[in-house]
C-alpha cells in the first residue's frame, strides 16, 4: 500500500514541503476557500516555519484570484488570529501552520467568520469546491492589507480579563518555551505585562525548530532544566501555533498535558464562575471529578476543537478544552488558547499561594496511556468490533470511534481521518490495570 504524505481532509490541507505540498496545491486550496467563503477580508498568518513565506505568497495569490482581500498578519499564533477574525468581523482567516508537526511539514488551517474552524459539513463543501475546481475567479484583484499590530486585540482581551495586580504582587518567576514558534515574538512581553519575571528559552526565530514542537514531556527537557536552574515557580511550553500548552512544576517535572487543562478548569470553576464544562471524549476523568465537585454539568463531544467550541456556545459553557493542553476560555474566545491558559494558571498560583506541584498533587490521580497503532484503512472497522466484543460489559459510546467506560477505567479507540492508524487512550486509577487493558487491546490487532 502506498500512502501520500499529502493530507487533504476536512481538517484542511497538510503535507511535506519539497515533496507533496506545492505552491500549486496551496494556490488552488486558497482559491477554493475564497470561493467558498465569499468576498471580503481574510486574515493570513504564519507560524515561524521557513516555508511560511513561500506558502503565504501562494495563499495571497489564490485569495486575490477569487475576490478576497488578504490581510497580512505576519507571524501570529492561531488563537490570536481567531480572536482577530472575530473582533474585526473579518470574513475568515488562514493560518499557515502545521502546528505540532515537525518542521518539514506545513498546512493551511481555515477559519470562518466568528473566528471558528469549519464544521465538518462546511469542510466537506469546501472540498467540493476544491476537487471540482469551482473557483469564482475575478478579473480585477484587490489589494493586500497589512496589520502592524496583529497580537494586540488578543493580548488586551486577556489582560482585561485577568487580575494582573494579584499576579504581580506575588513576584513569580516564569520560564517559557515557545519552541521558536508563532508565539516567540509576543510571549515574553505578554507575560511581563501579567507582572511576572520572565525568562524565555527557544524564543528566537531560527531556521527550523529548536525542539520537536509537540509539547510532550520528552520534548521539553530543556524547559525542565531551566526551571530548576533558575528556581522558577513554573515553566510553560507552547507548540508552533501556540494553541496547546504544557506546564512544568517548580521542581522541573512536567505535570502532563491533561493536568494543564485540569488546573485551568479547577481554577476557573472555583474562583471565576460556575459554568458547564465541555471537553472531548478523550479527555481525562480528572476534569469529570473536578466538575462533579464543583457541582457543574460536564459535557463531552467528539474530538476536534470545533466540536468543543460549538458545544460551549450552544450550552453557554465558559470553560472547556481538549486534554492535549488545549484550554478554551469563552470569555476570550471559544478556541484553544495557550495564552489564556498561562494567565489562568498564573492567577491560580497567585490566588492560592501554593506551589505548582502542590496544585497538581491536590488533583485526583489517574494513569493514562496514549498510543497510535498501525491499522490498514479497510481493517479498522473489524478491529473496532473485536475490541467492542472484548469490552462488552462497559458503557459504550460510538459517537467518535469507540469509547467504553467502566467504573475503574475507560478506553477510547479512534481511527485517524488521514493516516492508516488508530489512536488508543486508556485511563484508570490503577497503573497496573491500565497497562493490562492496554496489552489486551493490542492483542486484538
Amino acid at each position, binding site marked *: 500500500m502506498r500512502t501520500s504524505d499529502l493530507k487533504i481532509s476536512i481538517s484542511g490541507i497538510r503535507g511535506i514541503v519539497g515533496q507533496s505540498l506545492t505552491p500549486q496545491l496551496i494556490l488552488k486550496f486558497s482559491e477554493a476557500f475564497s470561493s467558498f467563503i465569499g468576498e471580503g477580508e481574510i486574515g493570513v498568518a504564519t507560524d515561524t516555519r521557513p516555508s511560511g513565506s513561500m506558502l503565504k505568497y*501562494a495563499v495571497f495569490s489564490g485569495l486575490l484570484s477569487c475576490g478576497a482581500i488578504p490581510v497580512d498578519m505576519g507571524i501570529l499564533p492561531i488563537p490570536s488570529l481567531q480572536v482577530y477574525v472575530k473582533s474585526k468581523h473579518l470574513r475568515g482567516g488562514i493560518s499557515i501552520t502545521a502546528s505540532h508537526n515537525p518542521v518539514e511539514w506545513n498546512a493551511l488551517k481555515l477559519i470562518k467568520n466568528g473566528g471558528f474552524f469549519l464544521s465538518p459539513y462546511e469542510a466537506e463543501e469546501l472540498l467540493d469546491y476544491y476537487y471540482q475546481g469551482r473557483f469564482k475567479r475575478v478579473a480585477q*484583484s484587490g489589494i493586500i492589507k497589512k496589520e502592524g499590530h496583529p497580537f494586540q486585540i488578543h493580548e488586551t482581551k486577556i489582560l482585561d480579563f485577568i487580575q494582573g495586580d494579584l499576579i504581580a504582587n506575588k513576584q513569580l518567576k516564569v520560564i517559557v518555551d515557545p519552541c521558536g514558534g508563532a508565539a516567540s515574538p509576543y510571549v515574553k512581553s505578554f507575560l511581563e505585562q501579567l507582572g511576572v519575571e520572565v525568562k524565555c528559552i527557544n524564543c528566537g526565530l531560527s531556521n527550523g525548530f529548536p525542539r520537536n514542537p509537540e509539547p510532550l514531556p520528552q520534548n521539553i527537557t530543556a524547559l525542565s532544566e531551566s526551571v530548576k536552574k533558575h528556581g522558577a515557580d513554573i515553566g510553560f511550553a507552547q507548540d508552533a501555533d501556540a494553541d496547546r500548552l504544557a506546564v512544568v512544576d517548580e521542581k522541573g517535572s512536567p505535570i502532563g498535558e491533561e493536568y494543564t487543562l485540569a488546573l485551568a478548569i479547577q481554577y476557573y470553576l472555583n474562583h471565576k464562575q460556575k459554568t458547564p464544562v465541555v471537553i472531548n471524549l478523550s479527555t481525562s476523568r480528572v476534569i469529570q471529578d473536578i466538575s462533579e465537585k464543583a457541582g457543574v454539568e460536564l459535557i463531552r463531544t467528539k474530538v476536534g476543537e470545533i466540536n468543543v467550541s460549538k458545544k460551549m456556545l450552544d450550552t453557554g459553557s465558559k470553560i472547556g478544552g481538549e486534554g492535549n493542553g488545549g484550554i478554551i476560555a469563552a470569555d476570550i474566545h471559544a478556541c484553544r488558547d495557550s495564552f489564556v491558559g498561562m494567565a489562568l494558571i498564573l492567577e491560580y498560583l497567585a490566588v492560592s499561594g501554593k506551589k505548582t506541584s502542590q496544585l497538581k498533587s491536590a488533583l485526583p490521580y489517574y494513569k493514562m496511556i496514549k498510543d497510535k497503532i498501525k491499522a490498514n484503512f479497510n481493517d479498522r472497522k473489524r478491529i473496532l468490533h473485536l475490541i467492542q466484543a472484548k469490552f462488552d460489559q462497559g458503557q459504550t459510546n460510538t459517537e467518535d470511534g469507540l469509547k467504553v467506560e467502566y467504573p475503574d477505567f475507560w478506553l477510547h479507540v479512534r481511527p485517524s481521518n488521514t493516516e492508516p492508524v488508530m489512536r488508543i487512550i486508556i485511563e484508570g486509577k490503577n497503573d497496573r490495570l491500565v497497562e493490562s487493558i492496554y496489552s489486551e487491546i493490542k492483542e486484538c490487532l
Partner: protein
Amino acid sequence: MEDRLRISVSGVRGKVPGALNVEVASQFASAFSSYLEKGTVALCRDCRESSRMLSLSAISSVLASGLDCIDYGRLPTPFLQFSLRNSKFSGGISVSAGHNPSPWNAILLLNQEGHYLEAAEGNNVFNVYEAGSFDKAAWNQLGHISKKEFPLDAYLKILSSVVDSSEIRKAKFKITADPCNGAVSPFLKPYSEFFNLKMVYINNEIDQPFSHPPEPSIENSSQAQAVVKATNSDLGFLLNSDGSRLSLVSDKGAALSEESTLPLCLISLKKNITTAVSTVATSSIVDWAADICGIKILKTRVGQSSVCHTMIAERAEAGGEGSGSFAFLPFSPGYDSLFSLTLILDLMAKQRKKLSEIISPFPDLVRKKIKIKVSPVKTYRVMDQLEDKYSKEHPDFTDGIRVDRKKAWFIIRPSLTEFILRIMIEGQDLESVNSIEEEIKERIET
C-alpha cells in the same frame, strides 16, 4: 473562441481570469524556475488589476523551486531587462501584457542577459511546463524573497553616456506625457527633472484603469494631440503599459505613426550604428532612414525575441519594429520607450530643430494596419489558402506572407498575441492601398 492561452516566446498570454489565471502563472513560473540555473529571479509587474495576483503566485513558485526572488514591484519591463543586464540574476519574469487591452495579461520570461527567450530556449521551458515535473526544494532549501527599488540614478547615468544630456537640459523642452496610467508613470517626474523638461501629464495615475487602449498609435493620440496644442508643447508622447513602445505627437499637434519611432531613433544614433535589425512588417520609412544614415538593415520575423536574437547573432547594435519599439544593445537588452524618447529629444537638441521639421523629409507613404478576427482553429487554414493564392507573386515567407508590388507592399500574418490576422499595407497612394485591402478581404472571405 477568444478565451485561449497563447504560449510563445512573446509571453504566456491570455484573458484574466479565463485562459490566464493564477494557476497557469504559477505553473509557468515553476517550469521557468526549474529550467533556470540556481540563483535569483528578478520579477516585476505592470499596473493592471490582475498583475498583482499573477506576480504573487509566480513568486511562490520561484521560492518553492529553491531560487531566490527579487521583487521590483511595479516596473517597466525594459527596466527589468536593464537590471538583468547589470546584475547577476538567473532570469527574469515580467507580468505585463504591454499593449494589449485590459482583460489580457501575460507572463514574460527573460533570460539572464535580460533578453526575451530565444525560440528554442522558450520551447524548452514550455516542455518543462507540459511535462509538469517541477523542481521542489526541501523546506530548508527554499528561496528567499526580497524587495528592491529600481536604481533610476544608475540608469540615467548610463543613459547620459549615450546622449548629450547637457544639450537636452539646455533646450528646456516642454512635453506632453501620456504613459496610459502605466508602469513608467512613477519614473517620469525624476526623469523630467534630470533632463530639465517641463512635463504636462495626462493619464498618469498608476492605480487607475487604462483610459484608452494601451497601444501607442495615432488612434489613441487624440487626448495627447489636444494637450500638445493647448500647452504649446514641443512634443507629446504615448507609452504602452510596460514602457516598451513609444509613439509621438509633433509640436504641431499632429500624431505621428508609431512607425516613425524606429527611424527617428536610428537617425539620432547613426554614429553608433552600422547594422540594425527590423522586421518584414515594418514600414519602409526605416529603409529610407537607414539609407541616408549609411546603416545596413536586416529583416526578420516580428517580435522582440526574433529581433533581439538576430541582433545578437548578426552583431547588430540596434533593432526595432514598427510598433514604436527600439533597442540599442550597448545600452540595454530590450525595447525601451524612455530610452527612445531620450534619443529623439537628443536629436531635437543637437539639430536645434522642431520635431515637425525633422520628420518633414520623411517619405510620404500611405499605410493601413488592419486586424481581422479569425477563429484560432481556422487561422492556419486561412493562411494556407492565402499562400496558395499569392504564390505566383513569390511572396516573402519570413513571417506570414509578404508581397511587394510596384506601388505598394503588404504583409498578412497571424498575431503572436491575439486571435487576429494582422495586415499591413503600405504604398505611395491611397488608391493602391485601398485596392489591396479590398483584394485581401475578398480572398480571406472566399
